[in-house]
């Protein structure tokens, strides 16, 4: 079943991405990328390596951290419920089979696409800074998100209000998606909403690059907003998770500005060499 869902996801993405490349990027940039990709990869190499490292840690930790989380984490589902009550049931007013289908699609496919496309788009820019900033922001989202997941043990609204959310819960309408989500996450990891924070991160970068990708900006904003709403509509996240996700996105985007370009690998190795107690290259 998991394989089935993954194949479907891969198929959808493999259709959407090339289409978007043609629509949003343009031939000229692609041509230049073909000649410059090596040097761009070299510049961005360390950032890519860190992201992959964090993703690997995440992959392992999402399975092992729940135990640690149970021991040291704060149990906050009750508190979230106390604070915001049945706020997310507000979406009951727009509930139709069509909106449910829309938000389910957005939650699974829209989100995946939203994360993948800008990586490709920004790689086609000659200046790799924005590309490196995007990857850095992704890395920060995952890293900070993981720490918060360990510290906060909370179940999402779907676990508390299954009756009210019955008709639109993702796993009722499409139980197969639960194979995918239970593979990547456990049900007590809801604070913050990483769906929201990563989507908001992408949308913020889309705004920063609106002169380079004018057509992408509105699409990214609509998709990101839809993802954030879908997490509440489908009962997966509390509104507080979404607010926290938005704040996390803001923090990650601004941190990425401070961090990227701060150290170059060459400088770092030089600094490291200076600190060594024995003389180096004395000529």
């Amino acid at each position, binding site marked *: *079943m998991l394989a089935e869902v993954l194949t479907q996801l891969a198929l959808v993405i493999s259709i959407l991405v090339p289409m978007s490349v043609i629509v949003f990027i343009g031939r000229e940039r692609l041509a230049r990328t073909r000649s410059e990709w090596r040097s761009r990869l070299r510049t961005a190499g360390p950032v890519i390596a860190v992201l992959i490292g964090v993703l690997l840690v995440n992959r392992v930790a999402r*399975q092992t951290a729940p135990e640690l989380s*149970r021991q040291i984490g704060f*149990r906050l*589902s*009750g508190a979230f*419920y*106390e604070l915001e009550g049945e706020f997310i049931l507000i979406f009951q007013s727009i509930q139709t089979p069509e909106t449910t289908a829309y938000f389910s699609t957005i939650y699974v496919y829209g989100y995946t696409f939203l994360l993948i496309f800008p990586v490709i788009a920004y790689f086609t820019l000659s200046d790799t800074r924005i590309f490196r900033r995007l990857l850095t922001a992704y890395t920060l989202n995952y890293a900070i998100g993981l720490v918060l997941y360990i510290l906060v043990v909370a*179940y999402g609204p*779907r*676990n*508390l*209000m*299954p*009756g009210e959310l*019955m008709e639109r819960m993702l*796993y*009722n309408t499409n*139980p*197969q998606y*639960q*194979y995918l989500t*239970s593979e990547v996450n456990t*049900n*007590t990891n809801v604070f913050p909403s990483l769906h929201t924070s990563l989507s908001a991160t992408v949308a913020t970068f889309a705004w920063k690059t609106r002169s380079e990708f004018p057509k992408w900006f509105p699409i990214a904003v609509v998709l990101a907003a839809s993802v954030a709403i879908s997490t509440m509509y489908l009962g997966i996240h509390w509104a507080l998770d979404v607010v926290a996700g938005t704040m996390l996105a803001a923090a990650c985007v601004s941190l990425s500005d401070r961090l990227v370009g701060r150290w170059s690998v060459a400088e770092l190795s030089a600094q490291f060499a200076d600190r060594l107690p024995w003389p180096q290259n004395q000529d």
Partner: protein
Amino acid sequence: MNWDPTSPDTGVSRRSFLAAGAAGATLATSGCVDSVQNVVGKTVNGQLSLSITTLPADADRQGIQIARQLEANLQQVGIDVSIDMRSPSELLKAVLIEHDFDLYVGHHPAGYDPDFLYEMLHSSFATEAGWQNPFGFTNMVFDTLLEDQRRVDGAQRKRLVQSVLTALAKSKPFEPICRPDEYRVASTDRFDGWGEAALTTRHGYLEPEPADGVNELLALKTDSRPTSNLNPLSATMRERETIIQLLFDSLVTVHEGEGQPWLAEDITWTALEPADGEQGPTLTATVSLREGCLFHADERLAGDDEQLADEDRRLTAEDVAFTYRFLKDTSLGRAPTPSPAPRYQSHVSAVDRVTVDSEYELTFSMNASRPVAKRALTVPILPKQFWRGLVDRRAADGEFTAPQGRWIAATGDHVPPIGSGPYQFESRIEEDQLVLTRFDDHFTLRDDVDLPSPPVDELRFDIDPSSASAVRRIADGNADVTASMLDAYTLDGIPDSSDVEQLHRPSRTFYHLGFNVRNAPFSNTHFRRAVAQLIPKQTIVDDVFYGYATPTATPVTDEWAPERLTWDGEDPVTPFLGSNGELNVAAAKAAFETAGFRYDDNGRLLGGY
């Protein structure tokens, strides 16, 4: 709201009732009080504040909805309520081991014989950790009734059980809500005969007949705990013990609500006339074991030469006698205080003495009638060599304590488990999968034994994320059967196909609201009764279970319940204060006031009473 605690059936005096109450108060404030975190409290303005512990919807779709219905009604009568969701093992740990809860909504596995109530309610278990008396309830009337019902048989017993149920419905250490219908689905492609035995017993996995060439049975579970723990003593890692029954044998097996010989080849019952009145054993069971049975091959059973031989694996009367001794005290007398297993206490408490007569013969002296005595013989038989070794190693350094339900014998994962059952452990992937294989030396595979034997080489349990996805997987022909009971919301959506068989069994299990009667205000019977009247059982059955449940005032099936406790459209003792699920707030508040509680000017129920 007053009720006369003196039951005409037993003639226990008011004085002994008061004495039991005093004993209860002492119990509640002694011993384990340090470990009990008092969660109930008052808010700054003096309002009573409490929390309802229950499972998240992923683990139990119905329990959380009952909890929230109750939450809404408690709030309407002016009580500050919070909901505390915990995973299945954490819920059981909080309720059974740590007694750290106010109210909880749970799903009790019950039992095929009402003697499970002895374990749930007897005062002698009030300070113990485990499935025995998690409420901390103490009442001498109950104790007498619970003891008496297990010593007699037939109509006499039924009357006494009815008295227990009547007293229970009045004093409510817990409030039964409903008995859910138990549905499963199976694919008929590869196996036949799913309906032969309940999938809650070992027989359910032994009776189905595979089609030619089929050598694996794939069952779907929604509860992943068996992939991380197979310790038969664990209180928190399972409610029902179906998988334990496959891995371990017991002297008697339960099939269709009847105990029948299993590892015991023959049982001879002899009734005794107790010398004077009530004390002393009333029945002996002389058990002949099946000869030549072996435990599963495991290096940990090897003798002093550290080479595992068949001799080391033999299951004899010594192992059986050891099992009963061990369940009574898992420290085997080596710890300063005994440490009874957090399970099976109604079973072992029915046994006074076990005597080994020869290698394959032993005699049980029971203080119970035959049905209860038979149930006592259904515990899993453990290998003495392994478990005694565990205690020896722990006790070796001198400083040995065995806190009940919390020391390694009860909390260890016991993977791989060492049993003698028809299936043996092969492998597991935590949270994902448990694979068992046929135990070729099992006695059911002998030619001269007429009992169901393991039908396939491999029995695999896959963990599926939800009832809905499990049903779909069966319908798609990608698995054979759902091992877990299906959530009610999926039942109307079961595809009507000739390949999918619905397996329906009337349920003995029950949803209930449990009170921690150690703490005020739950120690107050009148408060508990007022809370029980806030539960719209019929509406819960209609809305939460879609009609696939039976509302109930008793925790046992109707065959045991007295006429006056049967459901007749509303609860016969504490009817819901309202209609069509809507609470009559004024009436409900009046009930709390009659119970001696006071409200402030803002309609908040005050915590000081």
